[in-house]
């Protein structure tokens, strides 16, 4: 069930009216939890069991960590929850990848090893909810939060449908306190929430999905396209992935807000960053801070030598790449970002810091765009062919069979950049804020009607659902 689908609208209308019609916090939360499970079962009912197991296991572990006074017992329960979470993630997401990679490695060394072939379907959103549950037990262990007051609260923290399948990755400390008291409809900043939902919808359905139609064939068969088409496809994918993911997040935050819950910000105009380091403070912010707090800092962060800091950065970004997908393309993508961050900590970083802002943004967008080529490619072979093609290395397609992306699409890039800058200046928010209620309602109706004709009629899943 995608946020841009009609069935989500029907689902949400029922969930919304049911939620606000009920009296009492407990009843409302129970309703919302049931709705969230229905939402998740809409993808594949079998995986609901997985979600329930993860919820029950981590709730129990959290409660035991909170109760156990001796450090050994607490550590044991933390280890149990980590094993459960990473075990589930590892089995469902990485089993095939590691099995294949091990077979290939042993084969290269001259040993015959055939890994068992299990066809395991990837449960949607597993990386997101696993990171949430991990953060919960770790935070309870670190005594930063108290264990959840009730299993209902914890289950809702894990499964709240706006963030369930593609984030933002919410921490218990952000969400659990919001479950304590009943939400008030009057306290909701409706205009802000509606604005987010509308802008998210436009980004996803009107921009990202349309760009996908142009971009997909080039990445599927890069050898058939010339240099200019490859550059164009890379630039358009750069726009597509931002609109896709930030559009989803906007909708998620807006939908949660309408139900009275505040989710953390996940994007802050990342393509306007002037260093890769700054980019990661603005892109998928909740994932970045997760890796920072639960991996980078425990590894030593930047407190050790330059070598240790570099090692930590590269390790974190290799794992960040792997978190995105069980493929070497993601690992390579993480390596590129890790390497750039290491470089920026040295003399190169001082040069970058002195660049005028537009030049810095150009540098960041160049690096990130090249990274996205690795990220989007089906395999490393095709990724390198694509990257080679960008600088005319490798065999060019024969003119008789060469395909091309219409040049007109180049116009999309500056247009979208301008829209991005306009959004940064909060034109919508400022205009909407000045309107009386009736004019705001009319404006929303008119805007929605004007937007829908530009929706790509083929539904495409959000890119980040696969992670």
């Amino acid at each position, binding site marked *: 069930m995608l946020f841009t689908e*009609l069935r989500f609208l029907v689902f949400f209308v029922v969930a919304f009216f049911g939620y606000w019609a009920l009296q009492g916090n407990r009843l409302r939360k129970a309703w919302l939890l049931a709705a969230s499970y229905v939402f998740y079962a809409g993808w594949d009912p079998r995986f609901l069991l997985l979600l329930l197991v993860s919820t029950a296991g981590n709730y129990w572990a959290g409660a035991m960590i909170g109760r156990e006074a001796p450090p050994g017992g607490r550590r044991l329960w933390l280890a149990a929850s980590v094993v459960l979470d990473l075990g589930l993630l590892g089995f469902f997401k990485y089993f095939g990848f590691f099995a294949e990679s091990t077979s290939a490695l042993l084969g290269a060394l001259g040993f015959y090893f055939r890994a068992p072939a299990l066809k395991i379907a990837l449960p949607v959103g597993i990386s997101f909810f696993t990171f949430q549950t991990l953060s919960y037990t770790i935070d309870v262990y670190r005594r930063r939060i108290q264990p959840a007051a009730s299993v209902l609260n914890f289950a809702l923290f894990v499964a709240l449908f706006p963030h369930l399948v593609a984030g933002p990755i919410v921490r218990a400390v952000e969400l659990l306190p919001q479950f304590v008291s009943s939400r008030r*409809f009057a306290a909701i900043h409706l205009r802000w929430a509606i604005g987010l939902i509308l802008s998210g919808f436009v980004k996803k359905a009107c921009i990202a999905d349309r760009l996908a139609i142009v971009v997909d064939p080039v990445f599927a068969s890069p050898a058939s396209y010339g240099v200019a088409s490859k550059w164009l496809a890379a630039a358009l994918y750069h726009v597509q992935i931002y609109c896709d993911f930030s559009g989803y997040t906007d909708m998620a935050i807006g939908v949660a807000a309408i139900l009275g819950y505040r989710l953390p910000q996940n994007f802050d105009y990342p393509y306007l960053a002037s260093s890769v380091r700054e980019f990661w403070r603005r892109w998928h912010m909740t994932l970045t801070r997760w890796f920072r707090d639960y991996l980078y800092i425990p590894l030593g962060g930047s407190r050790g030598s330059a070598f240790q800091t570099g090692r930590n950065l590269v390790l974190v970004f290799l794992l960040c790449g792997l978190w995105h997908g069980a493929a070497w393309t993601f690992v390579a993508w993480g390596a590129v970002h890790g390497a750039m961050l290491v470089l920026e900590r040295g003399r190169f970083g001082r040069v970058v810091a002195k660049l005028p802002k537009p030049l810095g943004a150009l540098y960041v967008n160049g690096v990130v765009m090249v990274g996205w080529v690795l990220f989007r490619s089906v395999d490393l072979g095709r990724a390198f062919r694509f990257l080679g093609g960008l600088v005319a290395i490798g065999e060019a397609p024969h003119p008789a069979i060469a395909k091309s992306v219409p040049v007109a699409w180049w116009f999309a890039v500056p247009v979208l950049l301008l829209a991005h800058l306009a959004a940064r200046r909060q034109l919508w928010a400022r205009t909407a804020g000045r309107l009386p209620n009736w004019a705001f*309602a*009319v*404006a*929303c*109706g008119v805007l929605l*009607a004007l937007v*829908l*004709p530009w929706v790509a009629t083929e539904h495409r899943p959000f890119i980040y659902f696969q992670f």
Partner: protein
Amino acid sequence: MGGLRSLSLAVLFGLAFLATTASIRTALPWPRGGAFDARMRHFISHVDEYDLVFVGSSSVARGFDPAVFDAALAARGHPLRSFNLGVDGMWSLEADYLIREIVRRQPTRLRWIVIDLFELDPKLDSTPESESDVFTERGFYWHDAWGLAQVLRRVFAGSGGLREEARLAWVHVRLAAWRLGNLGQGDIALASWWAGPASEDAGIVQGGGFEALDDLNHPVAGKMRAFYLANAAQYEGVIATLDERNARPEAPPEAKRAEIREQSERLRAANIEPLYIIPPILRATPSLYGLVKATDVPVLGFNSPTRYPELYATEHRWDATHLNRAGAQCLSRLLAERLADLLDREGRTDAVH
């Protein structure tokens, strides 16, 4: 914010949305993206020049040659001008939308609409299972409020079981939502505004909308023909029993009867006479003959090898469902004769078969 205040804002939102989508729809070219664009475009811009139009599936589109039909009627002393608006793969509710669009334009000269009496399917006349086939311009353009109400009525009158009915109903609700929101129509509106109205297809205008399968040169049509020729002997057996099977008409569903009744009343209110036809196909159509008995609308049945052997002769057929050019000329003359008979007996509109 009070409940009433919230409700009034929601109503304002809805009205603004509906008004804007309706305005956008009027700016969109119609028809668009369908196989019959050129014919419909011509007909709309010459709506007052025709006395009779043919509406229906490929059996109609490939089965009636207006030039031959008009000439045969003129020879009987009834000079008419006709146009073929048949479309491959059309089904009854799509045809009904087309008919409503024709009537909405208040054609001053139009007296007859010859309508394919579509085969009855307890679920839907035809619903491709694949979503990519369903969710197309052709799939949703007829899903206005009336079209949706009709199709839902038919879905729930069927016997497919609740699960299947819900699935089908949801498909059509989504199609109606697509149409309501003009989903994905922005490019078309922009292209139409940029390029202006499309020029007319001279071949289609000259042929009165008729295009014989012989001229189509389409691989699917070629395959259908090859299959027919390869199984010609088998079809002889079908032909031999067709009349016998049609002689045992089946009672049509009430929903279908109501549809036909309502459609014919609507046409008559606009001073247009509906004339339903059962095309000659190599398949028994007892449900259609059942419909003839159950309604008082005029129906001309041609699915009878005994009565119309020429329509089943191999030299007149393209395949099991369609006639070739020679067959279409033959059927056009036959229909002209029977319509002339009706016109001669002025006032008679009862079932003919």
